[in-house]
Each structure stands twice: as structure tokens, then as C-alpha cells.
């Protein structure tokens, strides 16, 4: 028997930021389009010093999905 667990966040389809399900507008880009089909997470703590942020083109600290779509 498989147990399905709901993901704790949904991802903005425009900027890939992860937000709680109750949020309706993306705090990063203002988009209202979200998806539950995402995988991989990158958490940027210090956007200026982080190589991960530069590699992914992220300018603001926060949680982001690595990939949108299943």
C-alpha cells in the first residue's frame, strides 16, 4: 500500500521559488501560477557569496525548486 504525502511547498512556475500552499502570489516575482510538480531543492542563504545562486541565476535568498515538471 502506497502512502501519498503532500509536498510541503508549491513552486512558482516563473521563478521556481517554493512557497507554502496557502500563499497565492509569489513573493519573489508576483506570479500567480504555481505547480506541485517540482523536484530538487536549493536553499540560498547568502545570494551574494553563493556559487549555487550564481550558477542558477538566483538573486534573492530563499527556497527554490531545481526542476519544474515531473
Amino acid at each position, binding site marked *: 500500500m502506497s502512502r501519498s504525502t503532500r509536498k*510541503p511547498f508549491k513552486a512558482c512556475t516563473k521563478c521556481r521559488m517554493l512557497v507554502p500552499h496557502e500563499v497565492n502570489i509569489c513573493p519573489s516575482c508576483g506570479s500567480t501560477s504555481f505547480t506541485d510538480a517540482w*523536484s*530538487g*531543492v*536549493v*536553499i*540560498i*542563504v*547568502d545570494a551574494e*557569496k*553563493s*556559487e*549555487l*545562486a550564481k*550558477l*542558477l541565476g538566483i538573486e534573492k535568498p530563499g*527556497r527554490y525548486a*531545481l*526542476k519544474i*515538471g*515531473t
Partner: protein
Amino acid sequence: MASTESKRNLTSQFAVLRTISGKELNVALVLELRASSEPGIYGILVPSDLKGYIIVESDGIHSVQKIVKGVKHVRGRIAGSITYEEVERLLKVKSPLEELQPGDVVEVVAGPFKGLKATVRSVNLAKNEVEVEILEAAYPLKVFLPGDNVKPVGKG
């Protein structure tokens, strides 16, 4: 080499932590909370295709050790650190559909055709969908399947 090295922040180090499989995100969220009081932590990566591991970007191992101490579900740290190039490779997540070409043979791994082999007819990356022709059917049977329902078996 000098040119690529000079573009990068040489103080960044990537430490690999082992976690209990399935708890990667929970660990990353706890570390995020702790990182707010530790200026040496720059980022945390939870790769989608690497179960049981997370990668912490920091100014050195000592910063990682500080925030990891006592965190539940962490099973230890892999000695040493991984290179920027290895992290880059992990970040470039490729959809399995991107590697499929029309004519390739796939095995259906879920749904009503589970266990049957099929030939790829077309791939729709935008919809994450693949059109296949079931090989073991008595008559030509073309179906559209979600990308996750097929597994590559051989090239056509």
C-alpha cells in the same frame, strides 16, 4: 584553468551530508534555520536524483560542523568536499524523456500496460508525454503515456 578559477569565489566549499533517505528536505529546512545565525553558510542543495544526501555550500567545513551538530536525521558527513564541477553536474537535471528518440524501445513501468515493451513514436517534452506503440499487442496500438511511466530499454 586560471580564467575559470578567477571568475569563482574560491572561498566556497561544498560539503556532503548523509541523511536518512526521504528526510533530505526536513534536514535542509532545519539547517536553513540554523544558517541564519551562522554567516559562513551560503546555500544548501537537495539534489532530486541523489537520495539520502544533501550538499552544503559554506566558507569551510567548520561552519558546516557548527550547524549540523545535533540535527535529527543526519547520519554524518562525507570526508572532504566535492568540486564546483561536480555540483554543476548535479544541478543540470535532465528529464529522462530528453534522451528518448523516436524508434527507441521502452518498457512500460506503470499503468494498464505495465510490463509490456513499446516503441517510441514521438516525445512531447512540454507535456512530459510520450507516444508509444505497444509491441506485444495483437494489433497496432498507439497510446500516450506520462514520461514517468516508461523506462528506456534500448536504442532503435
